[in-house]
């Protein structure tokens, strides 16, 4: 399945591919000793696109973004940023990209404006343009009135906005964001999404974003690559990905004390394409016709005297796409990540 999907991933969406490529990744591999963190991944990102790398923690998203942004060496394969090979011409690539790492790394002791000034100087922004660019960015991320505040006094959401401004201080063409909303409250997350939408519209940026939030990827991205265990398992527009999953609706239903063969009996309903048993009488039923299957399902439950505790019908989500391509639920992977223990010493090639 992976081989077929990789071919599809290389091809991207079904739309005619006319836009030039801002990012090209060809057969990229990253190994730490015997462990392969990224395994032969290829894709491209078109200019002006918001491209999402979606996967659980440890899937290899951050490793991929770190290779593309010159932070870690590539074991094999090629990554090109606007035509600059990141291994051969890293500085050429660095001048064109803005990077927001996963951790909040702005200096806590400096003020908002001082942080931006330092980065403007690191990017060699001419002195006369510096102040104008900073003023503009502060307005864009809504931090103008906090410009003289020390970064340590800002909330998590404000600090993330500062990081976004920091990554844009030199007017990059391509913007990399590594899990920009992780750890933020729902209100701050929505604020960051809106801000990214505005920024993209104003600056004609190409954006590559990694996330493990399905809703974030669904809302923001033009195309999404699903990464699992270091491999790219699917790549397409969110709608196309959802359409690729058999069934257009998901019925989430909880029964009270269903019989042992209940899952098999649910499979016999019309239009049902897949069933996931989640325990405690909870089932996710993927179907091509939500309303008809719901009616039949309720009738079957009444006839079998199995009480229906709760029921909801939804459209197919990216979560279903993830399950379809990986065989596991993303939220299970996220829960596993809490129990994941980092090795004491990181493995190096």
């Amino acid at each position: 399945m992976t081989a077929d999907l990789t071919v599809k991933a290389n091809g991207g969406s079904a739309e005619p591919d006319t836009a030039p490529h801002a990012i090209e990744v060809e057969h990229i591999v990253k190994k730490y000793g015997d462990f392969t963190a990224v395994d032969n991944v290829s894709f491209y990102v078109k200019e002006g696109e918001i491209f999402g790398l979606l996967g659980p923690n440890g899937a290899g998203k951050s490793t991929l973004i770190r290779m593309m942004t010159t932070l870690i060496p590539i074991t094999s394969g090629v990554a090109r940023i606007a035509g600059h090979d990141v291994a051969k011409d890293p500085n050429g690539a660095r001048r064109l990209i803005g990077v927001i790492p996963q951790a909040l790394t702005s200096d806590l002791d400096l003020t908002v404006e001082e942080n931006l000034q330092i980065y403007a100087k690191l990017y060699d922004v001419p002195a006369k343009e510096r102040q104008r660019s900073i003023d503009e960015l502060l307005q864009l991320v809504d931090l103008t009135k906090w410009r003289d505040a020390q970064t340590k006094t800002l909330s998590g959401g404000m600090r993330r906005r500062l990081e976004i401004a920091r990554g844009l201080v030199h007017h990059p063409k391509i913007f990399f964001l590594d899990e920009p909303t992780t750890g933020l409250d729902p209100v701050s997350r929505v604020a960051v999404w809106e801000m990214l939408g505005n920024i993209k519209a104003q600056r004609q940026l190409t954006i590559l974003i990694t996330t493990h939030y399905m809703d974030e990827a669904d809302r923001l991205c033009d195309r999404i690559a699903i990464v699992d265990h270091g491999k790219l398992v699917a790549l397409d527009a969110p709608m196309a990905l959802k359409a690729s999953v058999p069934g257009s609706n998901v019925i989430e239903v909880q029964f009270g004390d269903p019989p042992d063969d209940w899952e098999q009996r649910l499979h016999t309903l019309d239009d049902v394409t897949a069933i996931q048993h989640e325990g405690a009488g909870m089932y996710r039923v993927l179907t091509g016709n939500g309303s008809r299957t719901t009616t039949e399902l309720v009738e079957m439950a009444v006839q079998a005297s199995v009480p229906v505790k709760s029921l909801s019908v939804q459209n197919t989500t990216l979560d279903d796409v993830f399950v379809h391509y990986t065989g596991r639920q993303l939220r299970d992977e996220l829960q596993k990540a809490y129990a994941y223990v980092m090795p004491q010493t990181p493995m190096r090639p």
Partner: protein
Amino acid sequence: MNRMMAIVEREMRKFFRSPALMMASMIMPLAQLIILGNAFGGKIHDARVAIVDEDGGPQALRVREAFDSVRANMRTFLPINYDNEKQAVQDVRNGKLQGALIIPPQFSRRVYEENHPRIAVVVDNSDNFMSSAIEDELTNMVNDLNQPTVEPRILQQTALDIVEMYPYIEYMKYLLPGSLVLAMFVSVMIGGGMLYIDDKARGVHEGYLVTPITKLELVLGLNSAGAIKAVMTGVIITIIGSLLAGVGTIFHPFTFVGLLIMIVLTAIAFNTMMFLLMVRIEDPLVPRAIFGILNTLLFFPSGSVYPVQAFPKWLRAIARVDPFTYAVDGFKCLLLKETALSAVWGDILYLTIFAAITLSIAIPLFKRTL
């Protein structure tokens, strides 16, 4: 009780999983025991003392023979023959010699005439331990000459004049150069060591690495920042320390310029050394853990609190490569001995070469990637 033991268990688990902390907590007291045990209280050996024989007569020869016998037995002195009294005194002032024994013209004749023969020892009393040792040893030597076991035909009744180079130097003044160097080291340890690793761990360097800054710019930037902080510490401690200890030399413009040069070079040398030590470290605990060990290994062997000439050979070898030794010597010359800058060129040269070598090793070790 269980709750208390949970705290203990957590602390123990953390401790046993931090090899750097475990090693440091055991090595530091051992290093202190070995270094401090050998650095203090030893007898002075091989003090460079000039012998200027302006008499050349048979009685002067007896003094020189007695001097040589001290060299052969106690090894307190390393005698160096000088023809010129002025040059010998100058070299004592410059720190090349620890003292100079002057046998004046007509000494033998005065012995024969029993006309109050005198010899003089000029000592560098900026180091009280060293000058006391030389004075004691030479006083004993002259007493032995005046009261030999077998009485000769003509008995020397020589007097030893002790000439101290400087007015009395209190211990506080003596400690000032060492304290100044230690303050600069602490500044480098915090500013160039701990903060550097903390920033690395917090991901601040990750932010730098995605910008077009070159490896050389990054290394020089980090080192310059650490050195500037140490220079500021050096200038402040020099001024406040001098005022507290009553050292007036900082008000001489040439000395102040010399001090500034020494402060800048010491700051650079210390910072490049620290950068080399930290260049591949990732764990923020490491600089904290090795702070005490480095302090013991570098500060005490430098001769800032006890003369190097009292150390065993292995400790002298550490002192010979330790940048503290040269920094302390340079500051001693300028602050306490009022020497010209030419007297500390050797220290300046060593610190410059040390900085160049440590930096040239650190640059290839520095990783431009994560």
